[in-house]
């Protein structure tokens, strides 16, 4: 038992440390002047005055777009899952809109929202909206018919049926869908910030390169994005666990 625990922690930790060491060595040996060493990255980030503000702006944008997507997407997904006629009409439309990268909506976003926070928020909304709708819709479609039958048997109205049977029944599946769409939102955030704004982690990366080949900040930005994204995903996993019956 102790050996298992040791292995679970020591092994990944060891490999990670080894990789960092290898990175450091590679930079030192190759004598490159552009690619940063691990220490450079940490220093660069630490010296960056506006880092806190950038992180805050990124979090704000992703939270706004994502929450709107959830608030709109779940009821729509419910409706599409419950009334199959509606789903059949809407499905081709969803399938057509889905492959269009949120970034491709950028010109339209700029027309509608100008160069402001709203444009990236809109893109994030678009990116999270479809996965939330689809996950909710599939959740409803896959409810064991027994539950709905039992609900009807006990004389529940349709509203009560949706509230007391359908919603609890789909909760675990929707929770997973919500976590996955947050992951997508986080990815799109970076892309969105590379184009139309002047703050945020995505902006940091593009600007660091354009304004002076500061690859220490580029790598630092990437790592921050990875770490924060992972932390948020972990948080959502905890929520998901609590909600799964």
């Amino acid at each position: 038992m102790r050996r298992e625990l040791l292995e679970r922690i020591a092994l990944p930790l060891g490999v990670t440390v080894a990789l960092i060491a290898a990175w450091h060595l590679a930079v030192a040996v190759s004598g490159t002047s552009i690619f940063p060493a691990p220490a450079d990255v940490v220093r660069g980030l630490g010296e960056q005055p506006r880092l806190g503000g950038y992180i805050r702006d990124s979090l704000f944008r992703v939270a706004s777009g994502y929450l709107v997507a959830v608030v709109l997407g779940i009821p729509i997904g419910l409706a599409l899952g419950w009334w199959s006629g509606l789903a059949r009409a809407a499905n081709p439309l969803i399938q057509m809109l889905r492959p269009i990268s949120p970034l491709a909506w950028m010109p339209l976003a700029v027309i509608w929202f100008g160069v402001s926070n709203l444009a990236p928020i809109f893109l994030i909304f678009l990116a999270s909206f479809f996965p939330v709708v689809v996950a909710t819709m599939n959740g409803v479609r896959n409810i064991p018919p027994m539950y709905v039958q039992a609900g009807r048997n006990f004389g529940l109205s349709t509203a009560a049926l949706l509230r007391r049977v359908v919603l609890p029944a789909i909760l675990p599946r929707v929770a997973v869908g919500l976590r996955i769409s947050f992951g997508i939102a986080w990815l799109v955030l970076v892309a969105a910030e590379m184009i139309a704004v002047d703050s945020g982690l995505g902006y940091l990366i593009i600007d660091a390169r354009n304004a002076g080949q500061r690859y220490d900040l580029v790598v630092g930005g990437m790592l921050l994005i990875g770490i924060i994204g992972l932390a948020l995903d972990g948080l959502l996993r905890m929520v998901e666990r609590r909600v799964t019956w």
Partner: protein
Amino acid sequence: MRRLVPLTGIAAFVAVWHVVVALSPGTLVPAPVEAGRALVELAEKGLLVRYVVASLFRVTWGYLAALFVAIPLGVLLGLWRRGERAFNPILQLLRPISPLAWIPMAILWFGVGDLSAMFLIFLASLLPLVTSTIHAVHGIEAQHLAAGRNFGLTHEELVRSVVLPAILPQLIVGMRLTLGIAWLVVVAAEMIAVNSGLGFLIVDARNAGNRYDLVVAGMILIGVIGVGLDLLMRQLERLPSLRWGYATG
């Protein structure tokens, strides 16, 4: 009559689009008709085919390269629990990093051009493919692996005769979803790092003269091809030799 229902959604969307544009005079958003005309214009100039081919070319190579690396890696990590545990934190850390965040790196290593774009597609497809392969390997019925070992298969034989056939159905689903991701990313990558392709079309149309009709035409093309690629992959799932893996639940 039932067959027409799916079209009502799209028809309604186009109708609403047309009405909204008509009701907002002076808006830069093009009407459906204008977008349609722009598509024809692209076709006449020969750009339609050229841009579509350019985008498909980059996706294909980046995606295939990722497939080539991801499947063996995924099978290895799927079977070798210790290895998976060791490398898991790295994989988890890389997952939330948008492929587009790698653009400066790509440009540093490959310069601006096709290679950069293909590298980004490769990156974007690699992790999802590795993850779904590992997942598929974990999903193999323990009895099948046990039977393989019972009959005295070596590691290599086990992989070839049990693991690979067993994961194929789920793998193809993963491949289909990843292809969708790759298609998304190619468009985004083309908006930033190259000068041909559908993503480029969108950025250029706007920058070079506010040709929003071309922008929307490009979006339509992207959507249609995306659906087409997805349908193509779904055909693979229909092969009778794979249907066993898709038991409807």
